[in-house]
């Protein structure tokens, strides 16, 4: 590729673009095409270097020129410099020339120069000093436009040793007669704060802003004051009491009403941020609530989706404690949200639909008659279709299931394969949550007749889940499943599901042993360990039901399994082998116990996590479907994390209990969701608890269960976690020495704790993992404290905020010896780890205690 052409028409006027237009594409092509770039670098660097020095030369020639047309030439040169800057070429070498050329009255030139200076000043602090002079001079210009621009650029230099030059222009900027300059100056204060917080406080700028916020006539100045104060006090709140108080004042009734009464003066963006602030306000009584809602009612009709969502957040949070009003709010906000979904670009629809999704998930009942709005449209991008499918699944109930499932079946034949798959899964999920699944089962079986690979694969997985919940359908399903040729099933998940059914229903499927035999013959071609594990179990089950026909196949399977390179496959084969060797009837009890139908599959997200996301309405958390601590570090959680900051390490728990938590009242209202979740929990426990009392029973129910759950990690990963952990736990808990018992009523006063903590040495310090359920449950320290207390380990102090929590705990031996164990436990939920330090009066018992502690912690959240 040829080097970029040198620009020749230097005298062209600004309205006629010259060479730079041709430069841009050629340079960007160079930057983009990775391969040719490698070869081009040498010549390219050369030409670039000569380009920059050429620019410098031309700039220098023009610097002092007063000739007519000089400004036009400068404009062209500046444009070229900035176009280089845009594509990422370092043109900082021309800094001094650019500054020399900046002495001009042409405002377009000035702006380009400011842009350039702002971009490079930070990397060249010494050169930045050159600009101070002309910027300061411009800050005193008669034209408010120039004053504002200069002040903005001055504050944007981001050079720490130049802050002294900022204070006086900022002070006069805040008092400038022009609102434009004041607007710029207010944000300048924030820029100064980020360069040097002390200078900012020493000059008492926050106080000036506070004053300005409450008195300025210009709405944008007021709004900017609010943004700046909010950001500063949020960042300072952890450091000083005063900042905390100042932050509170922003939420005082006086400030809130002042802003509310002026809300229509603000532009839509400022309105959004003000509404966000209001959503944090804690109203004094119900009149207060209704006043605010009446005042904001018409904001729901705004064409800007961000304003509407911010208003909805205010409404939802204000009415949290008023069940029936809260429900009315849901009804009220449906129409505006649906209009927004239809009116903007698909990106805007996505943001709105994500919020609608959240509301639907919380209260599916309230949306059950609106299901048609969530049908997928031909033009919807897949990210929107996915959301809609989930919503359709959630709102399906007795009255609309037929329509919804009919619609979903249409998508199953869709050309868009990922969506077709999701649709089939959706049908399956609806089947699992309904009481009358008759018709749905028929539809699913029809899918199998379509003979599309991916449809068959998805359907098999579903039929398997369905059979686990509704064993009574086995007859119909097995008849159809038996006709599927295993050759047409390639996806591991589907294959595993098919094999599971072959094993489980081998009695009803005449060909089962022979199909299994066939599959076992091709053992070596089977790449997925998941499938091989299932083959082993299925062969066992089949053998126990139809021994003569399966004996040979089982032998082959066990032989292949023991020789398998995969550890789990090997271990399972060996386990089966020894079980059979030991006693076939025991093997029967382990592998083929009478099964209870699974009543509810576990929910993927705990209700705490969902509540947390709801608290963070109108933020990215809703789109990601994750609370902010899972994707943002603390310092950037920004103005949206406002209310529930917990002091560093507080000894009194009163304050936290008073913090506004919405879960409880909300559950009353949204019974339908919570009911489901509550059913979800116990059923898993229900399946597992018998095992605690009777060990042999325990094993027999667990082994096949875990083998089933491994086959569908996507749908029920929670269950499999829970069971895996239980399995692991039973191993751990069993050998734990029964000698150490803890006093459930142990007491220790903080003073003594502190003294002991100082005196004793660390006997154990270790990092232990926390289960995903534990992480999910740990939205406040209280959850863990209660849990540990149930295990006779008491909390003396706790604090922090996700992802980091800190606990000081203690326990006492229950042998009257008054021997204490002290624990410092730092939990990081984002890494799912706990850093534990144990100190003990009796160091010899600390191992035993640590084992107890670890097992208690591992049970947290289940």
């Amino acid at each position: 590729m040829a080097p970029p052409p040198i620009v020749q028409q230097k005298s062209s006027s600004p309205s006629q673009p010259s060479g730079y237009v041709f430069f841009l594409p050629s340079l960007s092509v160079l930057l983009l095409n990775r391969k040719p770039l490698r070869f081009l670098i040498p010549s390219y660097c050369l030409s670039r270097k000569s380009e920059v020095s050429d620019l410098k030369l031309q700039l220098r020639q023009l610097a002092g020129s007063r000739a007519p047309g000089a400004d036009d030439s400068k404009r062209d040169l500046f444009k070229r410099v900035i176009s280089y800057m845009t594509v990422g070429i370092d043109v900082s070498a021309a800094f001094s020339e650019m500054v020399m050329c900046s002495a001009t009255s042409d405002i377009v030139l000035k702006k380009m120069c400011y842009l350039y200076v702002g971009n490079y000043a930070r990397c060249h602090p010494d050169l930045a000093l050159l600009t101070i002079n002309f910027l300061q001079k411009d800050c005193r210009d008669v034209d408010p436009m120039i004053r504002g621009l200069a002040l903005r650029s001055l504050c944007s230099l981001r050079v720490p040793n130049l802050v002294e030059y900022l204070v006086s222009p900022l002070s006069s900027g805040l008092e400038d007669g022009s609102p434009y300059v004041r607007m710029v100056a207010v944000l300048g204060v924030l820029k100064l704060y980020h360069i040097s917080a002390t200078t900012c406080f020493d000059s008492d700028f926050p106080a000036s802003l506070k004053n300005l916020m409450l008195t300025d006539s210009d709405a944008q100045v007021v709004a900017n004051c609010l943004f700046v104060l909010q950001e500063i006090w949020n960042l300072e709140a952890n450091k000083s009491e005063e900042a905390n108080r100042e932050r509170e004042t922003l939420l005082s009734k006086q400030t809130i009403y002042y802003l509310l009464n002026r809300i229509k003066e603000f532009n839509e963006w400022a309105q959004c941020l003000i509404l966000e602030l209001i959503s944090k306000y804690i109203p004094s009584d119900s009149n207060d609530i209704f006043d605010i809602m009446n005042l904001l009612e018409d904001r729901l009709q705004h064409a800007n989706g961000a304003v509407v969502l911010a208003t909805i957040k205010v409404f939802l949070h204000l009415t949290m404690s008023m069940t029936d009003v809260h429900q009315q709010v849901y009804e009220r906000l449906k129409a505006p949200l649906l209009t927004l979904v239809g009116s903007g670009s698909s990106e805007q629809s996505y943001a709105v639909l994500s919020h609608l999704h959240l509301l639907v998930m919380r209260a599916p009942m309230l949306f059950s008659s609106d299901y048609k709005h969530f049908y997928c449209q031909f033009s919807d991008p897949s990210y929107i279709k996915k959301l809609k499918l989930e919503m359709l699944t959630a709102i399906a109930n007795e009255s609309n299931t037929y329509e919804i499932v009919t619609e979903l079946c249409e998508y199953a034949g869709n050309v868009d394969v990922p969506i077709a798959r999701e649709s089939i899964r959706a049908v399956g999920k609806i089947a699992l949550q309904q009481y009358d699944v008759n018709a749905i089962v028929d539809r699913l079986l029809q899918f199998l007749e379509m003979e599309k690979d991916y449809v068959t694969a998805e359907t098999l997985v579903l039929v398997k889940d369905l059979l686990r919940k509704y064993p009574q359908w086995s007859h119909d399903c097995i008849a159809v499943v038996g006709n599927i040729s295993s050759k047409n099933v390639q996806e591991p998940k589907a294959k595993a599901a098919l094999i599971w059914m072959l094993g489980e229903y081998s009695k009803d499927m005449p060909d089962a042993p022979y199909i299994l035999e066939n599959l076992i013959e091709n053992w070596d071609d089977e790449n997925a360990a998941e499938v091989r594990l299932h083959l082993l179990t299925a062969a066992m089950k089949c053998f126990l039901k139809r021994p003569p026909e399966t004996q040979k196949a089982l032998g082959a399977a066990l032989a292949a399994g023991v020789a398998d390179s995969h550890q789990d496959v090997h271990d399972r084969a060996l386990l089966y082998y020894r079980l059979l060797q030991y006693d076939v009837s025991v093997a029967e009890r382990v592998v083929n116990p009478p099964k209870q139908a699974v009543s509810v599959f576990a929910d993927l997200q705990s209700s705490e996590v969902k509540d947390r996301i709801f608290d963070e309405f109108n933020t990215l958390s809703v789109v990601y479907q994750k609370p902010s601590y899972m994707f943002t570090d603390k310092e950037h959680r920004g103005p949206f994390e406002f209310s529930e900051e917990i002091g560093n390490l507080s000894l009194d728990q009163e304050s936290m209990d008073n913090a506004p938590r919405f879960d409880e009242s909300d559950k009353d209202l949204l019974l339908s969701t919570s009911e489901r979740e509550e059913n979800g929990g116990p059923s898993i426990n229900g399946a597992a608890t018998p095992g605690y009392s009777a060990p042999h029973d325990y094993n027999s129910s667990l082994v096949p269960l875990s083998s089933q759950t491994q086959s569908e990690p996507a749908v029920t990963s929670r269950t499999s976690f829970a069971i895996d952990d239980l399995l692991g736990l039973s191993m751990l808990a069993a050998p734990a020495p029964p000698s150490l018992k803890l006093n459930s009523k142990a007491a220790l006063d903080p003073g003594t704790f502190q003294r002991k903590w100082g005196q004793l040495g660390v006997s154990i310090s270790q990092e232990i993992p926390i289960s995903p359920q534990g992480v999910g449950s740990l939205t406040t320290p209280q959850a863990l404290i209660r849990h540990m207390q149930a295990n006779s380990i008491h909390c003396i102090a706790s604090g922090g905020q996700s992802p980091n929590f800190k606990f000081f705990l203690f326990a006492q031996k229950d042998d009257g010896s008054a021997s204490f164990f002290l624990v410092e436990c730092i939990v990081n939920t984002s890494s799912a780890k706990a850093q534990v330090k144990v100190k003990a009066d009796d160091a010899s018992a600390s191992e035993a205690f640590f084992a107890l502690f670890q097992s208690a912690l591992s049970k947290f959240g289940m």
Partner: protein
Amino acid sequence: MISQFFVLSQRGDNIVFRDYRGEVPKGSAEIFFRKVKFWKEDEEEEAPPVFNVDGVNYIHVKVAGLFFVATTRVNVSPSLVLELLQRIARVIKDYLGILNEDSLRKNFVLVYELLDEVIDFGYPQTTSTEILKSYVFNEPIVVDAARLPTLGPASMFMQGAKRMPGTAVTKSVVATEPGGRKREEIFVDIIEKISVTFSSSGYILTSEIDGTIQMKSYLTGNPEIRLALNEDLGIGKGSASLYDYRSSAGGAVILDDCNFHESVRLDSFDVDRTLALIPPDGEFAVMNYRMTQEFTPPFRVNALIEEAGQLKAEVIIKVRADFATSVTANTITVQMPVPTYTSRVSFELEAGAVGQTTDFKEGAKRLEWCLKKIVGGAEHTLRTKLTFSQESHGNIAREAGPVNLNFTIPMYNASKLQVRYLQIAKKSPSYNPYRWVRYVTQSNSYVARL
């Protein structure tokens, strides 16, 4: 708030790049582009508008084939940023007349100037073209609209421009005409996107209209405007019950819901359905509305697939225009996926067909039938013979379809929402600016199942 803003071309190069807070590393544009380009490539999924890579949130909209992107580390309101990006695109379009890669590249200095005023230190300041006018000094370099290459379907804006005759809507708000004076005119467009799903037996399963009243004003001196809609216009489900026994076509127009631009005053809206506003410069939506009330769909579509002997099938697609003969629909595209094992296709257009083309997209296994125009009342049929490479199993109708229609119908709106009059407060007796009121209906999702 927002840390960076940038615009990338379809190929991924920076056209504009502005860093407001210096919190996000410099390579962000490249990280963004790779992520978008290779988002689940195997499943051909589109990247969602919002995603997070290493703690940086990337939020983008696609306009005119360009990526408008904002990055931030803060847990911001996604709606706010997406609306803002869309608005920035619109402001730029107001200034440049046409928004595309070429015009952006030619005017990037102007765009920087705009960006400086729109966002300061990550906080949005103003997006009003009106207010920005007094801060922005670069003159736009106008790109010739006639030489524009056709853009992909991603560009709503260009679609908008395409249906407008002449230079009107591609005119910059600030640039002066060659003659040195601006023409006093105002454009009001009623644009409706309609979604209809027909069942295999031709029943309407779902139907919805998403409409918008767009305005673009080139009036000097900001006179007040009154826009009168149908007098019997009803809004909300409550009002629908009053008209329960209306006939589906002749009765009052009932909207499910609507929203308004902030400049709109609704003082007399409840009385005489009149909107009053002082239109700001530039293009904006006066009102958005949604309607699920029954309406007559502009096209009836019937599609049929039947086996015709071994390894053969016949497809018949019929399209009938159910609107007045004075109206003509433009550029109609009919698409239909056929079974994946289809190997050969032969089309048979009706006798004397003019301006119709057919195509078989081999890769996507899709029939495409394009008609230049369809006059109201007309009916067109396409017969297609398919040859299969293997035997079909079972129900062939489940392996094909649905049929999808794309079209634009100028001077037609399905909802029957009307602008009864557009009144401009008079400055002097001789003041009589041009007023353009247009109606356009576009397909959003127009599907007939088999």
